[in-house]
């Protein structure tokens, strides 16, 4: 314990070198803006700015990238709340309640809540990281395909009931998301799959971002164009204002939901540690659980501040968590850490079990920088809230073309493929038409994120077990997770049955 504190102290000495401090602040600010762009999340931010880091020593470089990572995680919430467009899959759950809050003129409340929750999630997880790295690394290591599938089932189970009133349309939405997630390439059989109309662009699959920006960006904007036309050109994205008094009362309200944030942080951290899971399932599960434990679950989806804080705490905690397998095992827990890993290799650092002993200064400098980055990111974020609110007050007909343009570029940038831009516009128009018929679309977006994680894990497990489903129940970690998932899945059914019996 004392030894850890000593090492951490040395880490802080590294962080407070002027160059490193400047890199943290610069990285947080840059990350915030990259994360706030629809389409550009932490993955792109880190990948794109990787070459910039070759100008500074390795410790400074990883500090800069970690700051960008953190900043982008904060920033992701901004476009989710202001525009309803999740910049990255990690911020999808934030739109569910963040956007309704913004529409009610409470954008400032949602933005403050997201920033504070991110800070709580980041802080709790970095403390957990400091003291419990090695034993948790072991869990990450033994977590195999059956456990991954069980975890995905748990993620699905936690957000049943997120759909609309029409059961057929909800099921349709989940199914189409899962089918689209299978487009492209099947690694298990090594064959191209579902290359729709034999267009080569489908070989790389349907990117989550293309669907999300299509539905939430283009589709939502067309919806607003319609509302605007109905309102005689007077509509605005949000009419929030910021005053000190409002901010104080927002903060007071946040204190009241500390339990939700704590739950989100711890859950996010543990899910983040598991390789391949990353921050997205963590934030979805946090949202689902926040809804289930809430006294007023019907408020969720209509603008519940808990619905913003739970996933935001979780996704920041998970981004710290996913650094653990990266540093200790050399396995990325998320696409972003995969790139950080590449960076470390370029700087001549070998991630793996010996990194903590061989490059102790680097590791503890990084951990200390996470504390610092978290603090600076929340300060920068809160400082910018009035600016964001001001932007929202711009007349819709000025903001709309800018948002459309950002969507188009956001669809193009990650893969640099025109195919994806066309696909995004198609999703936008079809999504708009479906939304007018009350098709719930959030389940499709979630399904396209979880599908590619769930399907291979299921099939790998079945290959290992010669096709026996018992593999999901027999193993130490998979068993309990799977049983919890099934209980959660069937809980609503039991409830319905119970209510019927009581009524009789």
């Amino acid at each position, binding site marked *: 314990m004392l030894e850890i504190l000593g090492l951490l102290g040395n880490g802080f000495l590294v962080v407070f070198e002027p160059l490193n401090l400047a890199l943290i602040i610069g990285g947080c600010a840059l990350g915030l803006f990259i994360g706030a762009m629809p389409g550009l999340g932490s993955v792109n931010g880190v990948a794109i700015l990787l070459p910039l880091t070759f100008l500074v020593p390795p410790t400074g470089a990883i500090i800069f990238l970690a700051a960008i990572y953190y900043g982008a995680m904060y920033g992701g919430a901004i476009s989710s709340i202001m525009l309803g467009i999740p910049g990255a899959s990690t911020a999808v759950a934030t739109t569910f309640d963040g956007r309704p809050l913004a529409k009610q003129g409470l954008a400032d409340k949602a933005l403050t809540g997201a920033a504070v929750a991110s800070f709580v999630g980041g802080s709790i997880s970095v403390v957990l990281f400091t003291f419990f790295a090695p034993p948790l690394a072991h869990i990450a290591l033994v977590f*195999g*395909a059956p456990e991954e599938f069980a975890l995905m089932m748990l993620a699905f189970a936690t957000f049943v009931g997120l759909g609309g009133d029409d059961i057929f349309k909800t099921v349709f939405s989940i199914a189409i998301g899962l089918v689209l997630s299978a487009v492209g390439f099947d690694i298990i059989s*090594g064959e191209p799959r579902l290359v729709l109309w034999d267009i080569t662009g489908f070989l*790389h699959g349907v990117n989550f971002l293309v669907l999300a920006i299509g539905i939430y960006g283009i589709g939502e904007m067309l919806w607003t164009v319609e509302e605007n036309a109905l309102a005689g050109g007077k509509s605005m994205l949000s009419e929030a204002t910021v005053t000190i008094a409002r901010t104080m009362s927002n903060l007071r309200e946040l204190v009241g939901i500390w339990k939700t944030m704590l739950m989100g942080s711890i859950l996010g951290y543990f899910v983040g540690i598991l390789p391949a899971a990353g921050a997205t399932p963590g934030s979805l599960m946090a949202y689902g659980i926040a809804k289930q434990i809430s006294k007023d679950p019907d408020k969720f989806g209509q603008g519940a501040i808990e619905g913003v804080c739970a996933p935001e705490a979780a996704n920041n905690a998970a981004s710290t968590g996913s650094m653990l397998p990266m540093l200790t095992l050399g396995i990325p827990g998320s696409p972003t850490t995969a790139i950080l890993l590449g960076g470390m290799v370029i700087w001549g650092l070998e991630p793996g079990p010996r990194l903590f002993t061989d490059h102790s200064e680097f590791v503890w400098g990084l951990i200390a920088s996470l504390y610092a980055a978290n603090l600076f990111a929340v300060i920068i974020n809160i400082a910018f809230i009035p600016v964001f609110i001001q932007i929202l007050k711009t007349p819709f007909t000025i903001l709309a073309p800018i948002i459309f343009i950002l969507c188009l570029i956001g669809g193009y940038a990650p893969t640099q493929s025109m195919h994806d831009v066309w696909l995004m516009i198609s999703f936008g128009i079809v999504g708009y038409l479906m939304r007018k018929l009350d098709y719930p679309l959030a389940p499709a977006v979630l399904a396209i994120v979880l599908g590619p994680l769930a399907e291979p894990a299921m099939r790998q497990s079945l290959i290992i077990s010669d096709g026996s489903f018992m593999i999901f129940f027999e193993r130490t970690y998979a068993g309990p997770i799977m049983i919890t998932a099934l209980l959660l899945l069937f809980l609503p059914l039991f409830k319905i049955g119970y209510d019927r019996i009581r009524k009789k």
Partner: protein
Amino acid sequence: MLKTQHALTKMACTIGAGAILATMPLIGQAAWEPQKPVEFVVMAGKGGGADKAVRLIQSIIASEKMAPVPFTPVNKPGGSGAEALVHLNGKKGDNHTLMFTLNSFYTTPLRQPKLGIDITTFTPVARMAEDTFLLWVHSDRKDINNMADFAKAAKAKGKKWIMAGTGKNSEDNLLTDFLNTAYDLNMKYVPYKGGGKVAKELAGKNADSTVNNPSEQLGFYEAGTTKALASFTDKRLPLFPDAPTFKELGKDYVYYMQRTVVGAPGMSKEAAEYYQGLFKKVFNSKKWQGYRTKKSLQGDLLQGDALMSYWKKERDIHEVMLRNMGAIK
């Protein structure tokens, strides 16, 4: 009306001619150089082995100012590289598109003839390295210390012996098939996404063995979690002196993964020469050489016609291998 049209045509011609003149290297002027950012296509996803190498090359070119423009990596992992190949094939005569390839450069066109890719039309730039493969097991398997032990243990477990690898019909699958035939085994091949994941499955004992590249297992190997039994190379690797080659063990089998830079088909001669010179500089740079040593990479620099004949040879070898395993007819 006619007059203005005429004037316009004339103007367009003048501008066009000017543009041609401006882009044409005049006699005595400097040689060809890229004029806009060079698109560097990666046949694999972000964070994989090929992607890491590309980002390293990008940083070497940028930090040592070897080129006047940036090289921007674009990942096109779709369809085992099919998408990347189609993309490059569609860039005929383009002087600003390069691609970093793996062995799917041979296997994907063979397995998907519908794509209409002929790799001999691509411009050979430079083979930067050949990655090696070794056979790995977990260090807790105290009973397995050489290939004979391995064969015995794997045979005893039959199809319950799990070999993790990177996708069906991939390089790892070819090697697994070889081992199954050569040692009369019945190991079960389980495909995972990416070599890093495969390495972790072994370290976490969710698999019994793997055929990872050294770079993927190095972290676990150095920590004493996994050990290498034998290597699929010509000579023993300096990093793993205790792992004999299969040649030594009496099985004449060698397999490498190429790491090669390829240019678009029909790239101009001047541009091809420029990139060959550039990648020679990258190859000889301290950083690249250091990376090669550290990751135990083999294979000398190959360029131009030598590289082309290497491709043809390797393609024929892969064709035979794929046919033997029934992946193509």
